[in-house]
């Protein structure tokens, strides 16, 4: 479907829409013409209990029929004061808090905290611990991507794919459970290393998936991405151009789907990422479909990293020797990691005590929310649901 195929492309933001199509904003308000049907705009309150707002999001939309005239996102329904609570936790305990911020991919946020603390206290992390962090981060990244792609199918009406994705996610959640004892709130990465070593069963589970994974991903590709019904719902919709993505502070897959070749794992490597061979997947259109394909490609790359991790895992201790109560020198440090949703940054200020003076959590999806909101005007209601879903908000993270 081209842009001119009878439709107003709802994705544009610039004042000059492409191909000379114009969206008449007040098409139904031409009251001077008695033959013109006069209708009014109305407000629709979507969420926070709406089935597909992916958490506690409330969007107030002004609708003209099914066309959205304006949309306003209200956040804060899941605010738990995680940043304030962090001021009353010791450095070892911070991981439990940030787990609950981004509850779908906890490992990456834990890694950010650990990186910041290690910078402050100048701790050397053993090599094996670094590799284990990368391994677990990739496992968690795949689990998180599947947790997003499945519900994207639900949003667009394809219910089957949701459960197929859950099946695949289950394999990775099993690995996480085996390694950390938890399925969601891992508390695995800690300053100086990690909490547990790679178990034989976890390695077996991962090797099993590596054998079948490519076939299963082909299944996902065939049943969802290849489906014309799905492509019609996602292509050329919710388009975020390269300039918009950069100006809104997009990171991660949103940025890469819009054509910016930037990945922290390659460009500012932390832990052991400089030792792995993987590609940064980018797409050029920046629409919903590209964001999805971009992440499916990322899953493939993550599988590559996992394979390299399993093959080349160095021997050695999994944690540095640290005192029970960690006191870091005065100062501040920032740990930035490539999370499943974008760049998670954790900035810790220390006053020299055993607790941080201030912790700031930079949630990537808070910025995505601003982008999604800016894309709403001009979209259809059905597209808006898929479009907002495509940014993969995690409201534990947005509201903190």
């Amino acid at each position: 479907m081209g842009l001119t195929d009878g439709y107003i492309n709802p994705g544009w933001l610039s004042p000059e829409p492409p191909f000379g199509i114009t969206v008449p904003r007040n098409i139904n308000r031409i009251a001077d013409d008695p033959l013109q049907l006069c209708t009014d705009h109305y407000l629709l309150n979507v969420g926070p209990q709406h089935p597909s707002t992916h958490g506690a999001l409330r969007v107030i939309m002004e609708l003209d029929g099914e066309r959205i005239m304006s949309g306003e996102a209200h956040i804060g329904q899941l605010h738990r004061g995680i940043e304030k609570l962090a001021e009353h936790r010791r450095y070892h305990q911070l991981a439990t808090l940030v787990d609950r911020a981004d509850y779908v991919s906890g490992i990456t946020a834990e890694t950010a905290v650990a990186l910041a603390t290690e910078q402050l206290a100048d701790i050397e992390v053993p090599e094996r611990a670094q590799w284990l962090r990368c391994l677990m981060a990739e496992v968690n990244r795949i689990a998180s991507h599947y947790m997003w792609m499945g519900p994207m199918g639900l949003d667009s009406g394809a219910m089957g794919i949701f459960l197929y994705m859950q099946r695949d996610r289950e394999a990775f959640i099993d690995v996480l459970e085996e390694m950390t004892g938890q399925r969601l709130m891992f508390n695995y990465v800690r300053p100086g290393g990690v909490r547990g070593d790679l178990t034989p069963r976890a390695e077996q589970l991962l090797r099993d998936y590596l054998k079948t994974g490519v076939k299963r991903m082909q299944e996902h590709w065939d049943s969802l991405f290849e489906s014309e019904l799905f492509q019609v719902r996602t292509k050329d919709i919710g388009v975020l151009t390269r300039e918009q993505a950069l100006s809104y502070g997009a990171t991660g897959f949103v940025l890469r789907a819009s054509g910016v070749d930037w990945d922290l794992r390659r460009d500012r490597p932390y832990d052991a990422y400089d030792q792995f061979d993987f590609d940064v997947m980018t797409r050029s259109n920046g629409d919903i479909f590209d964001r999805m394909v971009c992440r499916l490609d990322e899953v493939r790359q993550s599988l590559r990293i996992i394979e390299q991790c399993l093959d080349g895992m160095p021997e050695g201790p999994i944690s540095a020797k640290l005192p029970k109560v960690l006191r870091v020198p005065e100062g501040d440090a920032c740990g930035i990691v490539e999370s499943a949703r974008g760049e998670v940054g954790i900035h810790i200020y220390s006053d020299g005590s055993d607790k941080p003076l201030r912790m700031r959590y930079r949630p990537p999806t808070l910025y995505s929310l601003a982008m999604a909101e800016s894309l709403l005007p001009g979209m259809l209601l059905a597209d808006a649901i898929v479009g907002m879903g495509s940014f993969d908000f995690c409201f534990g993270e947005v509201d903190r």
Partner: protein
Amino acid sequence: MNAWLQAVLWVLMILVVMLANGSLIIYMLRKVLGAAHLRIGPQELGPAGIFQLIPDIIKLLTKEDRHPNNSDRWLYILAPIIIFLPVLVAFGFLPFGYRMVAADINMGIMMMIAFIALVPLGVFAAGWASHNKYSLIGAIRSIAATITYEIPLLLSVIPVVIMAGSLNLSEIVLAQANSIWFVIPALPSAIIFLICAQMETNQAPFDMTEAEGELVAGFSTEYSAMRFGFIFLAEFAGNFVLAGLAVTLFLGGWTLPGVDPATMGILAPVVFVIKTYAVIFLFMMVRGNFSRFRIDRLAQMGWKRMIPFTLVWTIVFAIGYRAFQLWQPSLGSLLTSVFGGGG
């Protein structure tokens, strides 16, 4: 027999069939859709969860019957009945076997499609009366979808009528028994008919009226208890009616190829029901696997693709069929001797 008594018996039989069909489709939906989704479906109550329906019905019967503030109360109460009754009537035209049809009238197809086309009226009434914006959007979508699919649905029936030379459903079945199943010469019509039937029954990928991702539950958002139960019973019955109509029109109805229709006897309804559930199974597989249409895409597909295609195909078919009749009578009798029954 007294005509009135006969009518009452027919209505009772249709009600029984409808309820049995509702419970069977619910169970089938849960198991088939579950299998398509890598799930198990109900399994706790009875072997393979076959008694799951009982607590469901108890739940529907005992739930609070509430209606929203500011709703149009009488319309709100009436809407599920408007949805339910036309489907009930449409059941009466389905031939389950030789003379096993409640209303064997010469306008069978027309009446049936006319009654099924009344359902969106009830859907719109439900959405309008609910005083809920999600319901209203769903209701308006159902009207927009109706005018999209009714026309190709009707047009796709015409080749069958041409071949059978009758609008009477029983005669269409017998005509197929005497020649071949109409799905073979009129395959494009059968496909269009199945697509439109999927739309008619509000099933995914055409479930825009209740799109749970967008509109919560669409037109039925505010309905609870037995009113909701009626809406769903009507939906399942609609499923059966459309599938049964597809079987009657294209798949030989209650007859089997090579079997004399006069000797089918009590086997006829069994054959009919099995064929119908095979079509319902097809509906369910489609339902479980595709993304939802957007309402404007649906209108585009309906008006720009399906209506022109069915129009052209119907004309081409009519001309081709006449030519076939004129020039190749010997081939026709050959086909009959190969595929057709002895009747």
